[in-house]
């Protein structure tokens, strides 16, 4: 289901270990998406987290990369501890760890409100760390910047997808039951989505390092994905799955290009992309397509995904006229305008500005990633024009 492994193929150092760690992460993710049991979910999240720590730290060569790995581990283990504490409280209240079970909901209804709120907030802190929504996002730019690009591609997509599926399942379960927190969950997720979209996109404007920029962009997209989770109430899971799939493809493509460029020109600064559109017309055209898709402009898959999410949120709004939905819609629309500014820095530097002639080495082992990313770019375009292909797959 999650095909990120390809991006790492061209990494040379101790490949065997990396593959086994990736497989472990894959195992954790598969469990995560299938379980409804809190303990299983926790174990799965930890499996994924620990393998990501290893992946980030494993390839670290410079001091900065080690720092990123260290930061990641510290943040991760604190939030895991907090989540575990919340979990133990929940178990104490309900005596059941399956969050779809009747006893579990029953226990939640009867539990003392304040303590329960604390426990649930702890849980959300744990989930929020993995999804990196505001205010649990601080680790991600540093880690994204410090980690090697293929790992960043992995981090920005795969663990997020797994936790999102869990959260969507949880959200659906709790909002349909009638304990007091269910309304609160909706507000909590909506507010988190709004703040995350705004913060991610606004901070991304100021970035000059493309990996850091993509980190904030992916925070912004997390906000949008949270919105998709809210919208999931109204529609079939296809909408959420479509957006997730498209998001994964877009991000993998973008990081693929970043990786290729990093190895050919030795830089991840936007400044250094100046005038490169002439040297790599195909690469930057596809890069621009991906950027357009990330903004959510037609005729790309990102647009269709965005449209579906808007549609489902609007459906909810029409159904019960909750102002939160309207604010969500407006924020979603507004942030896509904001995001245009920074995604368009890529073609701006590559095509519009003139750069001095640079030595560009055509490294043979970037070919695979290069071709793969181009294919992803084309796929994004095709899925935008014919979204039916992917949607019928999710049926």
């Amino acid at each position: 289901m999650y095909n990120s492994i390809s991006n790492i193929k061209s990494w040379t150092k101790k490949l065997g270990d990396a593959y086994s760690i990736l497989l472990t992460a894959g195992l954790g993710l598969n469990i995560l998406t299938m379980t409804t049991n809190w303990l299983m979910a926790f174990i799965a999240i930890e499996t994924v987290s620990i393998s990501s720590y290893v992946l980030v730290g494993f390839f670290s060569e410079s001091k900065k990369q080690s720092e990123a790995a260290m930061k990641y581990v510290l943040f991760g283990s604190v939030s895991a501890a907090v989540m575990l504490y919340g979990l133990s409280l929940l178990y104490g209240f309900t005596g059941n760890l399956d969050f779809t079970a009747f006893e579990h909901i029953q226990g939640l209804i009867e539990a003392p409100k304040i303590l329960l709120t604390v426990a649930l907030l702890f849980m959300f802190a744990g989930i929020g760390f993995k999804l990196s929504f505001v205010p649990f996002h601080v680790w991600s730019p540093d880690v994204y910047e410090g980690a090697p690009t293929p790992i960043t591609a992995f981090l920005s997509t795969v663990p997020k997808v797994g936790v999102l599926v869990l959260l969507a399942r949880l959200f659906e379960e709790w909002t349909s039951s009638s304990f007091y927190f269910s309304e609160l969950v909706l507000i909590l997720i909506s507010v988190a989505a709004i703040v995350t979209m705004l913060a991610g996109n606004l901070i991304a404007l100021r970035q000059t390092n493309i990996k850091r920029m993509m980190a904030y962009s992916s925070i912004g997209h997390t906000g949008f994905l949270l919105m998709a989770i809210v919208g999931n109430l109204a529609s079939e899971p296809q909408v959420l799955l479509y957006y997730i799939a498209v998001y994964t493809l877009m991000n993998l493509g973008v990081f693929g290009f970043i990786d290729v460029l990093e190895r050919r020109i030795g830089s991840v600064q936007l400044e250094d992309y100046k005038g490169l559109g002439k040297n790599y017309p195909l690469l930057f055209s596809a890069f621009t397509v991906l950027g357009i898709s990330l903004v959510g402009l037609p005729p790309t898959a990102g647009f269709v995904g965005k449209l579906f999410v808007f549609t489902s949120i609007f459906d909810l709004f029409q159904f019960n006229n909750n102002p939160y939905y309207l604010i969500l819609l407006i924020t979603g629309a507004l942030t896509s305008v904001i995001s245009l500014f920074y995604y368009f820095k890529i073609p701006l530097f590559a095509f519009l500005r003139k750069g001095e002639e640079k030595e560009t080495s055509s490294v043979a082992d970037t070919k695979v990633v290069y071709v793969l990313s181009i294919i992803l770019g084309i796929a994004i375009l095709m899925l935008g024009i014919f979204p039916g292909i992917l949607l019928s797959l999710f049926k």
Partner: protein
Amino acid sequence: MSAWLYGQFDSSLNGINHLQGFQFIEQLPWIRLDLGSLGKLEIDYFLGVDGISLPLLILSAFVMLMAIGASWNITKNAKGYFALLMLLNTAVMGIFCALDFFLFYIFYEVMLLPLYFLIGIWGGANREYAAIKFFIYTLFGSVFMLLVIVGLYFSVTNPSTGAHTFNMLHMMNPENYVDGSFFAYLNNYYEVQGIPARMLGFIVLFVAFAIKVPVVPFHTWLPDAHVEAPTPVSIILAGVLLKVGGYGIIRVCYSIFPDAAAQANWWLALLGIISILYGALNALAQKDLKRMIAYSSVSHMGFVLLGVAALTAEGISGAMFQMLSHGFLSAALFFLVGVIYDRVHDRYIYNFRGLATHMPAYTGFVAVAFFASLGLPGFSAFIGEAFVIIGTFNAESVGTGIPRWMAIAGSVGILLSCLLFSVDLTAYVFRTDTLQRW
């Protein structure tokens, strides 16, 4: 390579034109997705041409041809240039033909991208700023348009299949609205901050198109874009793209929200008047030839808005006529500016003193274009503006709520633009005292 593209471009253009000139053409199937509880997603590839879009199609074909003619001097990456120009042409033609709102939106957005690159890569010194400003302005309008489109989608059903639809023709028919839905005609209790939902939808759509027209509070991107854009892109921008806004207002705002339009038309007319006067006054003060024409475009497009807001037959046909006439005239004006700019690389009016003695034939063309745009009888702009003014005068007697003083203000606008062009012509072009050496 560019010559080959040119040939390709030319023939395809004519082909499209002839084909659609003869009759209405509709094509149907595109995306039909079953979204479970969201219902069926009905998106059609639905094109058609009627009396509003056909003249604009011919206009855009013609202006595109002129733009290609003006691009002979483009040497920088000609392949990419013509490819983008063709993409732009496709999108514009698509907008004028689309009868499915989703399709319309896609063409509307696709139009932005080539234009961004055309201005951004082949533009003048300050091109990056102009390109991104243009893009942001338009995108800001259109993302909110997307929300309204989604809202409309939920309010309208296709009478034959019962599913929700993006079909604009169904949106125009009040019977297709679902009772109690967000944009419903009847039983509509939705309000946002005290504004009824249908009015809100109208305003959002109007703002999206007003940015394109451009109507005065949203016009600031236009002078920048015009000044920085290369001549052919200026021609297209003034000749065709501004018409997209006017077309959108007539086709989308007025046809889908006629009730809201009837309530809001006083304000629209006021905005039109402000655009006419403000644009003309601004144009008077400009030293840069392109900037001057850009502001006079704002003024001329104000007539379109005024005519549409009058809600009388004369007003709307006047607005249509004005759009066409302005399309040709502004294209001609920018073409002329481009001709002189290619030779001297200067656009300051002051430096063109005594032009008549150097280039008599050119001056003749300039004089014709200037007189035509100031609305002299015998030229197309006169008919457009006269009809708009007549329509606005009649509006009070017909009872659409546009007071007469607005028509008078519109006439003052004509006077101002008359002043503008004749001052430029007499004060600079025909003067002989200072000779410019080039």
